[in-house]
């Protein structure tokens, strides 16, 4: 075993998903001294006997200025318990691998500063997905929702010749700009109470993906109409109850709720829906 046994206790409790105020930690955990930070990290492994009952391990990690949650997780893994498992790659907020549930909300580990959070910092896998192991979740349902909106540029007309681009106005590019920033991290869809209770609801990320093409003038009017139909069908935009949780958690600051409402407005104007 690793050297970390002294710091590590498996606690026989289940995940406190959506809990704003996690259970009090052990007594030796105190306010941050500025030198270490205490993390309570969700652990689960279906194959390992001691981890089959999901619970939390406590790690004390030496901190440095600018330390992110991802830095702290890497430190915990590389220096204390190499079996600690989480996804990560770019370390700079573009790969979307490390969306986690941190102190009760969806955030990217690499873009979240340790110093901004109340201790002990509770780190859990993204809610509303099956947990594969520790902080790794099965993202299949998220990817399936993305596929449902035909997530690829698909214009009405063939392109001009091979050395001529389609024109796009600066204004139109500006309209689609924010929607194109999605990194597929899944934070928004995980935060949406409707998407979490109804597997069939497309959810904010997929609707935003549809919006990205719908709003792009280069695709053409016929395709835009088809896009609108896909997005406003039974499991589409009408399920949104404008709680803004998706917009609140999006690490790319995409105005997801606004895009969803825009689709609703346009669908109504296009007489696709009557009330």
């Amino acid at each position, binding site marked *: 075993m690793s050297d970390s046994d002294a710091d590590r206790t498996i606690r026989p409790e289940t995940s406190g998903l959506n809990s704003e105020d996690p259970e009090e930690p052990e007594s030796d955990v105190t306010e941050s001294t500025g030198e270490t930070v205490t993390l309570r990290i969700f652990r689960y492994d279906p194959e390992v006997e001691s981890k089959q009952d999901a619970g939390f391990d406590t790690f004390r990690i030496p901190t440095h200025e600018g330390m992110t949650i991802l830095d702290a997780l890497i430190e915990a893994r590389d220096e204390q318990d190499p079996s600690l498992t989480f996804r990560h790659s770019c370390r700079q907020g573009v790969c*979307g691998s490390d969306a986690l549930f941190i102190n009760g909300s969806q955030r990217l580990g690499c873009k979240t500063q340790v110093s901004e959070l109340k201790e002990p910092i509770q780190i859990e896998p993204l809610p509303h997905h099956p947990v594969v192991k520790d902080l790794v979740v099965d993202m299949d349902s998220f990817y399936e929702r993305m596929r449902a909106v035909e997530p690829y540029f698909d214009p009405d007309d063939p392109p001009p010749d091979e050395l001529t681009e389609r024109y796009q106005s600066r204004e139109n590019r500006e309209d689609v700009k924010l929607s194109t920033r999605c990194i597929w991290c899944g934070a928004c869809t995980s935060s949406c109470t409707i998407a979490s209770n109804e597997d069939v609801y497309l959810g904010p990320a997929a609707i935003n993906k549809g919006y990205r093409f719908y709003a792009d003038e280069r695709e053409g009017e016929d395709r835009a109409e088809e896009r609108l139909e896909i997005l406003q069908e039974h499991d589409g935009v009408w399920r949104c109850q404008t709680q803004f949780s998706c917009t609140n958690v999006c690490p790319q600051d995409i105005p997801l709720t606004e895009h969803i409402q825009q689709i609703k407005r346009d669908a109504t104007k296009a007489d696709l829906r009557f009330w």
Partner: protein
Amino acid sequence: MAMYEHDVLVIGGGGAGLRAAVAAHEAGADVAIVSKVHPVRSHTGAAEGGVNAALHEDDPWEDHAYDTMKGSDFLADAPAVDIFAREIREEVIQLEHWGMPFSRDDDGTVSQRPFGGLSFPRTAYAGAETGHHMLHAMYQQVVKRGIDIYEEWYVTRLAVTDHDEVADRQCHGFAAFDIATGEVAGFRARDGVVLATGGAGQVFKHTTNAIANTGDGAAMAYRAGVPLEDMEMIQFHPTTLPSTGVLITEGVRGEGGRLFNSDGERFMFERGYAVEDGELASRDVVSRAELTEVAEGRGVDDDHVYLDMRHLGEERIMDRLENIVHLAQDFEGVDPLEEPMPVKPGAHYTMGGIEINEWGETVIDGLYAAGECGCVSMHGANRLGGNSLAELLVFGARAGRAAAGEDVGTPEIQVGPDPDAEREDPDWPIEPGEISGGPPDVTPNDALVDPVPVINSAVEAETERIDSLLVTEDGVSQAAIRSRVQDAMGEHLNVFREKSGIETALKEIGAAKRELPNLHVTDTSRTFNTELQHALETRNLIDLAEAIAFGALAREESRGAHWRKAHQERKDEEWRKHTMLSWNDGDPEMWYRPNILESEIQEYDPTERSY
């Protein structure tokens, strides 16, 4: 044992892999992508500045070719450079046709901006997040075409016939394991395997590269017998954030950003490093200038310099470089609208790599490579900014088409062993090559030739290796071994290099190699075992670190990104040639291949490079 079969298998789902997959699909092949991360997690997505193409009527593609050759410090090969500059124009326009949201001029055409080392504003871009948009635009095309993706499968060994001569070998597929379940399976490629596994930036600690960039494809190809070319040529990007290595795009300087030392001097001009182009000199020139300023006491905190873009104004910054504002705030706690950003050089790009020709072919039949893992060579000793996204399009497409069986005629660039080559039997400070423990990737005995036995043998070998790693009781962690290599590389194979330092680094690498058989994986679970995955990656990092250091030790000159203290001149008579390292079945051999300055279209004159 499971066996998955396709015509073409592409390893890696970043830009080069996606482009290759689409090209192979369009050529009629049944294609699948096998990637250790979901494609949209690939590091192409972190590229910021743009993609170069001579799109303007006043910008002949031959100028782009010349800039690329000059940027390479005349180590690139002319046929590759010409093909690249000519074909990239259609590739970039095709991306636009695929919906890529390029930034636009007022007339609705694709915007282009100046970039380092370019004689024309030739860099098309999408904000400061060009790679993200390119990755997603190409992933969309893969989804649209229904191309199969095996995501979170980690390829660990190529299935190559065991002919004595490397040139007789054939690649039939590979062994890979499903990260989620730990299942090891065979993959058979009826027509070809395309390596598109990206760079090896993780050989260094201070790098812009993702954790996933461990050079797996280059290391696997090397051990299967394909030579590695110019591995010493590592690009250090001059503007990375000091605490994390996060990249600050060259686009900041392209738009007019300025570099200052602690005395407030615009040192690129005032200290004479590049009196014409200043901040827009080639990356190697700027990186050396920054570290010289630091070494001479004019750095900030003896560590970095400042990059200032405040004078561009908030409107222009938010229009063209908004992403940079967020990166500087999130990863360095600096608001670049209010204060200059601290920057220093960081390992960024692997110019060298798997030896390939202009169709992505390696010396092994059925094995291709494209993108950063390959070396065609079009970047030579220094890659220009905006040429990597461009390269992966042109040569990704070509590798995909060739792997799908397109007739490629007679390539101009040679690959494979050259009996007449100049060879060297250097006095290496450590024993190069094979690490004891575990079955070698290829044991030549002319016995394994047919596809299925070759693949089965690879799967058995990997199963054995993984099983043995999962039952270790004690030993050293992969993180410790990796750190040891990264520290040595950062110390001695950074921007400035000298013989004694490189030898010290090699001794450390040698020590890391000797530790490898004692690798201890604490996690015995087969479910999503990232510790096991990282342990397997560590071997690749060590082999590539050794190759980089050997190349750096051999090349006694200064050219492009490679600088040697005792040899500060470019020595064209002696060194206008590629360093080639052949694995030689565990007993590596260094040899040289002259570079090509003459193509069918033009001959390049290796003038002195100044900016």
